[in-house]
Each structure stands twice: as structure tokens, then as C-alpha cells.
């Protein structure tokens, strides 16, 4: 960042200060040009007064685990939302909920012009946090910040377990603050109450990858586990909006169906009943119908077959033939109907009616060639053939409807399960979960 013209007079440029720990002698760098209140020795973990030229020891703490290491080393610089920041402090905090300890990490970021900002990390979930300039309005269940409603998520006591580096406030290990989180993904509004002072901060969810890119860290960020309180839902679309759109499409489809149904001529062009005689079927059984005319535009032709079969089948090889061009559409239809009784009662299978629609038949003079075959046990039967020109086809609407419904249901389900996982970690778990836990509690 450009800092304008150098001062005409006055003190030299502030520099990062190199000092030594009064306890163990290890080198200590003060990176924040005097903004730090306390600084923690990286080797003996003495908390030192950063304002004191001799770095008076304020507190010493035992580290219970040696494995606490910041994922972003102190002194690392990165660009966050267009501003360069240096990591100057690191702390681990924890809270106990229902006897389980949850730990998270906070990083203090510093820019000499823009001041302090924070990053927090919990199980691979990151938040970019700054102190609120505007005062939120909060009651127990929600908070309003800059006109947006944040829902209460959790209230708990947060302990400071481990500190490293510089802090712009008087940090102590063992200090406990009451923290209340309100969420409006991807943002989280937090109030932290220490003694009488309440500090409000606003955080925005960050993916580990973004943090790694911002600070040019080697390797890959830790894989996030679970759903975090203000993690944006992978369902980025507005679920209600999706349903509204779906309903609009469904209505449109219905209107389209009604429109095509009204426009369809549904003109009967052939209605004949034919006899099938087994005795005659030794040789060539095929025959042709009378010629019928299809007028108007290219359209559908529906061929319906009715045969009053009972525990028999009849199979008809059809060909719809254009007398003018010789073009033919071949198709076979089976009509069969079986019924009977068994241990489950009466049953039936098949139908005495069959219908098939041939799409896109051009106008012209047509006839049907029919070649019947039948169950050898069927001696003779009369069957009826109906041909109707220009019938509406509704199957396509059903497919369209399903094609629209399936993604809508998937989106809704994913949104629902994600929100469920989010809120299951809160003070307000979803209904079924709270019932489950309360019923198990009753049994004890």
C-alpha cells in the first residue's frame, strides 16, 4: 500500500521490533508497530506485556498438548478481500456443550492502515471476521444487523486454552467469555461478553481453499467435516423460488395440453369389425382394409384394437400403408386377457383393449394391412379396429412433468438435509432430533 509522501520531520519509519523474552531469552518480534497489548513467547509461552519495553511477564501457562500449531504460521502475509494482512497472533479456544469439548482456532491479522481482522477455523471451516461498527439489535431468538435478520444458533462459554504471538487486547489463558452466535449464511454475527463489555463481530464463511490461496500456503487445507453454522448451503438456489417456477411450468404444461386437445381433430377414419377363423388361417391370412383419407397437416394416427378375448391372446401384425407413396409403418399389437382364482383371490391380467399412436403421418390416402395370429386354442373371434386421425399425445407432457419434478424434489431434499445437519449442532435442533434426545433422556 502506498503511504504518500514521507513525513517532513518526526520519528523514523516504524519497524517491526526485535526483542528477547525476559523469561527464556528467545527472540520475539513485535509485528504490529505498537498495536499489540500482549505478546506470547513462542518457546516458553510466557504472556508478556507488549507495551512494556522490558516485556514484563503477565502470565505463564502450561501447554497440555504439544500438537497445537497454527495452520498459518505467524508472520505469514496474505491478501484478504484486496488488503494485505500479516498473521500476528493465534489462539485456541474451546467450549463445552453437553460434556463434549469443541475446539476452534483464531488468527489475529494485522495491517498497519486497516487495523485488525480475524480468521477462525473449526474442523476445516473458516470464517473471515471483523468487529461490527454498527450496533446489532438482538433479542433471544434473533438479531438484526444492517437490516438483515440473523437467527440465534448457539450460546456457550468460550475458554481461551492456548495463545501465541501478539494480541491487540489483554489476552490470558483460562479467560472465559460468553459467546452467542446468530447466523444468516454465509454470515455469522457473534456477541462476545467479557465482564461487562460486549463485543459484536461479523464473520463470513470462507472455504479452506480460499484461505490457502490468500496466504499462498503449501499443500491442501484440511478437509472440512460436517456442516458449519454459517456454511452456505450447496443448494444455492432459493428452494421456494424453484417450487414457484415448477408450479408455473406445470400450469403452462396443463394449458398446453388443453390447447392441443382442443385443436386436435380426433377424426374417426376407419371403424371395422373383422372375424378371425382358425380354420381359414392355414395359408395367407393377411388382408387389407378400405382406403381412408388423412386430410390436413402431418399428424398422429391412433389405431385401437378391441377383441373380447378371455384367457386367450390374439396378435395383429399391422402395416399402415400410404397408397400414394407406398410408405409403410409396420407394428404389431397383442390383445390378451386372462383371469382366474388362486389363494389370493381373483386375478386378471391384460386388457381387451389396445391403443397405439403413430406419430407424424403425412396427409394422403392410406389403408391398413392386417395379419392376425391367435392362440391355437382360440377357434374364432370378432375384433374391432378403429383408426382416428389427429389425436393429442399426452405422454410427452407426463415425461416433461417428471423431468421438471425430479430436480425440484432433489434440490428440496438436499436443501432440507443440509439445513437439518446445520441446525442439529445448534441450541435449536430440528424437531425429530430433539424428540429423540428427550425421549432417550426420559428412559434413563
Amino acid at each position, binding site marked *: *500500500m502506498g*503511504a*504518500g*509522501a*514521507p*513525513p*517532513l*520531520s*518526526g*520519528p523514523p*519509519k*516504524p*519497524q*517491526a521490533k526485535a526483542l528477547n523474552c525476559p523469561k527464556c531469552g528467545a527472540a520475539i518480534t513485535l509485528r*504490529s*508497530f*505498537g*498495536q499489540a*497489548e500482549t505478546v506470547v513467547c513462542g518457546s516458553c509461552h510466557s504472556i508478556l506485556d507488549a*507495551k512494556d519495553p522490558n516485556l514484563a511477564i503477565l502470565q505463564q501457562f502450561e501447554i497440555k498438548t504439544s500438537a497445537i500449531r497454527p495452520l498459518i504460521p505467524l508472520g505469514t502475509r496474505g491478501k484478504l478481500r484486496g488488503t*494485505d494482512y500479516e498473521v500476528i497472533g493465534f489462539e485456541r479456544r474451546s467450549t463445552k456443550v453437553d460434556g463434549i469439548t469443541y475446539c476452534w482456532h483464531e488468527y489475529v491479522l494485522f*495491517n*498497519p*492502515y*486497516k*487495523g*485488525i481482522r480475524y480468521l477462525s477455523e473449526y474442523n476445516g471451516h473458516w470464517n473471515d471476521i471483523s*468487529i461490527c*461498527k*454498527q*450496533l*446489532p*439489535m438482538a433479542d433471544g431468538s434473533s438479531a*438484526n444487523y444492517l437490516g438483515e435478520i440473523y437467527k440465534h444458533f448457539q450460546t456457550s462459554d468460550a475458554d481461551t486454552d492456548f495463545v501465541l504471538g501478539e494480541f*491487540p*487486547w*489483554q489476552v490470558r489463558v483460562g479467560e472465559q467469555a460468553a459467546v452467542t452466535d446468530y447466523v444468516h449464511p454465509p454470515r455469522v454475527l457473534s456477541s462476545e461478553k467479557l465482564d*461487562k*463489555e*460486549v463485543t459484536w463481530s461479523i464473520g463470513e464463511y470462507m472455504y479452506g481453499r480460499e484461505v490457502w490461496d490468500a496466504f499462498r500456503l503449501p499443500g491442501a487445507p484440511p478437509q472440512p467435516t460436517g456442516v458449519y453454522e454459517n456454511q452456505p448451503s450447496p443448494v444455492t438456489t432459493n428452494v421456494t423460488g424453484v417450487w414457484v417456477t415448477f408450479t408455473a411450468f406445470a400450469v403452462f404444461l396443463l394449458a398446453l395440453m388443453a390447447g392441443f386437445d382442443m385443436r386436435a381433430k380426433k377424426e374417426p377414419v376407419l371403424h371395422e369389425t373383422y372375424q378371425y377363423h382358425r380354420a381359414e388361417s392355414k395359408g395367407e391370412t393377411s388382408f387389407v382394409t378400405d382406403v381412408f383419407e388423412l386430410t390436413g397437416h402431418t399428424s398422429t394416427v391412433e389405431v385401437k384394437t378391441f377383441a373380447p378375448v378371455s384367457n386367450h391372446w390374439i396378435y395383429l401384425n399391422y402395416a399402415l400403408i400410404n397408397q400414394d407413396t407406398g410408405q409403410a409403418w409396420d407394428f404389431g399389437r397383442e390383445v390378451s386377457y386372462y383371469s382366474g382364482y388362486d389363494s389370493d383371490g381373483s386375478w386378471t391380467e391384460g386388457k381387451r383393449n389396445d391403443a397405439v399412436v403413430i406419430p407424424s403421418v403425412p396427409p394422403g390416402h392410406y389403408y391398413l394391412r392386417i395379419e392376425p395370429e391367435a392362440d391355437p386354442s382360440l377357434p374364432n373371434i370378432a375384433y374391432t379396429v378403429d383408426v382416428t386421425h389427429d389425436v393429442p399425445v399426452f405422454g410427452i407432457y407426463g415425461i416433461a412433468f417428471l423431468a421438471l419434478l425430479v430436480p425440484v424434489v432433489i434440490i428440496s431434499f438436499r436443501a432440507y438435509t443440509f439445513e437439518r445437519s446445520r441446525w442439529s449442532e445448534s441450541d435449536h435442533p430440528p424437531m425429530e432430533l430433539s424428540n429423540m434426545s428427550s425421549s432417550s433422556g426420559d428412559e434413563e
Partner: protein
Amino acid sequence: MTQPAANCPNCGAKIVFRWSSSVQTVCEFCKSILVRTDVDLKKVGQVADLPPDSSPIQINTEGKYGNKAFVVVGRILYEYDQGGWNEWHVMMNDGTSAWLSDAQSEYALSWSSKAQNLPAVAQVHVGQQFTWSDQRYTVSVITPAHYRGVEGELPFQYWDKTDVTFVDLRTETGKFATLDYSDPEAALYLGEFVEFDDLKLKNLRSFEGW
């Protein structure tokens, strides 16, 4: 605007007032605190060296607030148990003066208010609400601080203070108020939080490595 000039009664250096209403200034050379009287400048004290501080702002830093330009002409440095902050005295190009406070790089501009019947310090508590200029303010923090030093031009005499209590108030809209109890009679400043980038500051300090 006139720039009344005089000489330091202590070391003879030329003293230039950039703001005609300044009451007090500090000699850049000998660090004498000088107060304007009707006839000349009187030395009333001596500024100890100010502690190194981290503010990017300095005397002569220029900036913008809305369509007004301003220049920093003076400052008061305070300390409290969680650190220190600066109240920079800025001169607007319309001849008025304001305060740019810089508390660990949280910036706010405020103006002296004429509001009457201000509460006594003992009556104020966190969370309490006050209404000034049709705006409701909530007390966010009460800070017992102490005066650490001065630099440059100030609109009043300010050099023999010790302990000072400040009451900070906020609103839901980013407005800001301070009750200043440095004198027996409380003083009220009303203003708002401002973004560093919006101030378009020039002639800032530079920091090694940044």
C-alpha cells in the same frame, strides 16, 4: 484563511497556525506547549516524547469526508488499560474543525455538539440509551483513560490533564457519540464511523515492510 504567524517564546522558532481558531499548539522544535493569549504565545508546559505509536495518520495527513477536504493539524493521545488511541484534530476546508479518532485502526469522525443537560458520569451505565438530534444512541463502553500527550494545534487548552473518563455510544446505523468527562462539565461529540478507504488519506506514515 489567514495563517497567523508568531515565534516560539522558548526557542524562537516560527510558529504557524493553520487553523485560525486554534488555542494551543506545540512547538515542533522544542516541544513547548504554547497557548495563545491576546498578545502573544505563552509557554505553559513541555511535551514529553510521545510513545511510539501505530497510527498511520500524522500531522499534515490530508483526507476527504464527503465533498469536504480536511487536513490533520493536531492530536491528543490517550491511553487506557487495553491500549491507546488518538483523537486527531482535523481542519475542514469550510473552516470548521472535527475530530478523527483512530482506535486501533477503527476510524470515526465527530463534531462537538451543543446538546445541553448531559448526564453526569456517575449516572451513566452500559446499555443506557440517549437521544440527541433525533437519533437514539446506546452506551457501548465506558473507558477510564488517561491523557498521554498532545501534538500540534488544538481548539482548546489541553495539557495538564491526567485521568479522563469517556463514554462511547453507538447506534444501529453506524453513528457514534462520545461523552467526554475531562472537564467538570461533560462535552458531547456526535459523528459516525468511517471506512479507511473512504477517507482517501494522503501523506500517511509509511511502515517498514508495508
